[in-house]
């Protein structure tokens, strides 16, 4: 039980740290944040409009009072789901704008992440099992080579070849003629549009899993219990899958959240390139329009998403591997 309590406490503490960080970042700049922001929006030499500054103050929430009082007010607003108003999509609240984009990124990143895990772990395990064969060297060298290519450059090339040159895939957007809804026509259309963005992410995403899985598996294959399993006369397939791979899989689970953060980062660049209607494109828009409320809420959403994934991976690890639970108590 102690293991699970520790992980939940860590999750809550990290969540608090992330929320506090989000409060501190805009206040790191010198001067009145409201004035600075209005100045930024208006341009360096423009005269400050007092009304605009006042509006910005209202949006930033409780600028009067000590830093501590501001912090309390900020926490209160967050607990009510109040993240402010987006400049870009004025007068819509940030939460509504993000709510529209969230499912797109959730599906794109979720599907790629799971596929990357399955592909990576399978290739890694097989390469370790067939160590020093041609398959092994192709997989290892191939991942090293693909790992050096920037993922957004891969996205640009894929768009160029399969979007514009051959015309096999749509060159942007999340859907075309259909209207959003839960029907086969729309889902098929959306899947068709998300294929190139997903592929762009999928080329580099499994690399970490491949190399990690291969290493742990090779280490596990040298263990005594594998020798025993072989001595018992168990078929190769059973030794490889049920003994070595099963145990090597465990450490991969803990890397899930960090890998998810990487894929999410990559999706910002890829969504920009494909004009995909998710959170990444929203972030790109927020950068261009200096839409700070939107930018900060996006950051918080992304961090919380990764933290949740991390918590789930940690809890799952505890369930899967009794040694972890025992070691901690």
């Amino acid at each position, binding site marked *: 039980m102690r293991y699970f309590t520790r992980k939940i406490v*860590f999750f809550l*503490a*990290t969540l608090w*740290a*992330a929320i506090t960080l989000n409060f501190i*970042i*805009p206040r*790191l*700049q010198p001067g009145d944040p409201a004035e600075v922001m209005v100045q*930024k929006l208006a341009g360096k030499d423009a005269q400050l409009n007092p009304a605009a500054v006042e509006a910005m103050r209202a949006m930033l929430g409780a600028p009067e009072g000590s830093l501590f009082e501001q912090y309390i007010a900020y926490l209160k607003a967050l607990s009510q789901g109040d993240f402010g108003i987006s400049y870009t999509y004025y007068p819509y609240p940030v939460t509504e704008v993000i709510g529209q984009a969230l499912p797109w990124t959730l599906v794109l990143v979720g599907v790629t992440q799971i596929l990357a895990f399955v592909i990576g772990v399978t290739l890694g395990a097989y390469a370790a099992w067939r160590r020093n064969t041609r398959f092994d060297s192709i997989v290892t060298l191939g991942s*090293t*080579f693909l*790992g*050096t*290519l*920037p993922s*957004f*450059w891969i996205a*640009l*090339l894929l*768009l*160029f070849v399969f*979007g*514009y*040159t051959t015309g096999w895939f749509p*060159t942007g957007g999340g859907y075309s003629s259909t209207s959003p809804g839960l029907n086969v026509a729309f889902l098929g259309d959306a899947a068709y549009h998300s294929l190139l963005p997903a592929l762009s992410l999928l080329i580099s995403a499994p690399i970490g899993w491949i190399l990690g899985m291969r290493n742990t598996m090779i280490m596990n294959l040298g263990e005594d219990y594998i020798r025993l399993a072989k001595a018992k006369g168990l078929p190769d397939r059973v030794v490889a899958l049920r003994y070595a791979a099963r145990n090597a899989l465990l450490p991969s689970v803990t890397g899930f*959240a*960090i890998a*998810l*953060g*990487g894929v*999410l*980062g*990559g999706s*910002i*660049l890829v969504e*920009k*390139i494909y004009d995909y209607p998710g959170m990444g494109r929203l*972030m*790109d828009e*927020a*950068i*261009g329009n*200096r839409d*700070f409320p939107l*930018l*900060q809420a*996006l*950051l918080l959403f*992304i*961090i919380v998403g*990764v*933290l949740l994934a*991390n918590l789930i991976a940690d809890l799952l690890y505890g369930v899967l591997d009794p040694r972890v639970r025992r070691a901690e108590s």
Partner: protein
Amino acid sequence: MTAGVVQTGSGEGPADASAVEGEYTRMRWPQLIWSSTKARAGIILLLLFVLVALLAPVIAPYEGTRSDFGALLPPSGDHLLGTTSQGGDIFSQLIYGSRISLTVGLFGGLVSTAIALIIGMWSGYKEGTVTDDILSFITNVAIVVPVLPLMIVLIAYSEVRGVPLMVFVIGITSWAGHARAKRSQIITLRNRDFVTAAKFAGEGRIFREIMPSMTSLVAAGFVGAATGAIGAEAGLSFLGLGDPNTVSWGTMLYQADAQGAVAQGLWLWVLAPGLVLALLITSLTFINFGVDLLSNPHLRED
């Protein structure tokens, strides 16, 4: 190398076992890395990039920031790779762009490695204390928080754009993984006999005793951090967060994307910056194969 030997000799007290060991690893360093074919190729490639960056004004036919040529000129003797839609010479931009990538890689890698060293070593040395708990918590938070979105927000708030800001933001966001590795290494090292022996010589000496044994991990961490910093600069610049008054490979791709180079089939403009970026990252990855030989003796046999 001779200078290193002289230094050890002039050190206080007789050269004890650990100092000899430190000297030994330092001496074998370059040879070991050089013994790997991949690392050799990586070093030569990297030196080539450094040379190009240093000699940029000699090699590039024009200033990287100049943009008064005809728009979208095809490749010719005057413009080897043609021009951009704003009238910039792609080849010259490519040459000058190497300066930004290498600078950000070097300094971003240094800042990140320095932070990782301080936090990791301090935390590991104070293992089991409240200090360690706090530092480990900060490290674990920094590991799970996705870096790119955080860097984006930090840069978006800043009024000034440019290389120093990039270096700072990349440095303070990407040290955590390295710091954790450093912490666990310190914990195993501090229980070794030679460190225990050094403890009797006074607290201050301990880091000096431990440092030589850590150099290979520090080097590997630095190469990794520099690679990450170069990639991060490209990604951030591609999002338009670079210095608009300089030319980097990331800003080139940003311009290409913004001007619809992909849609118009201007493949040279898109292909060239990404290719050199991939080449630079390849060179560092290859160097890391050599650095890995230092920390993992099992790899040396092949």
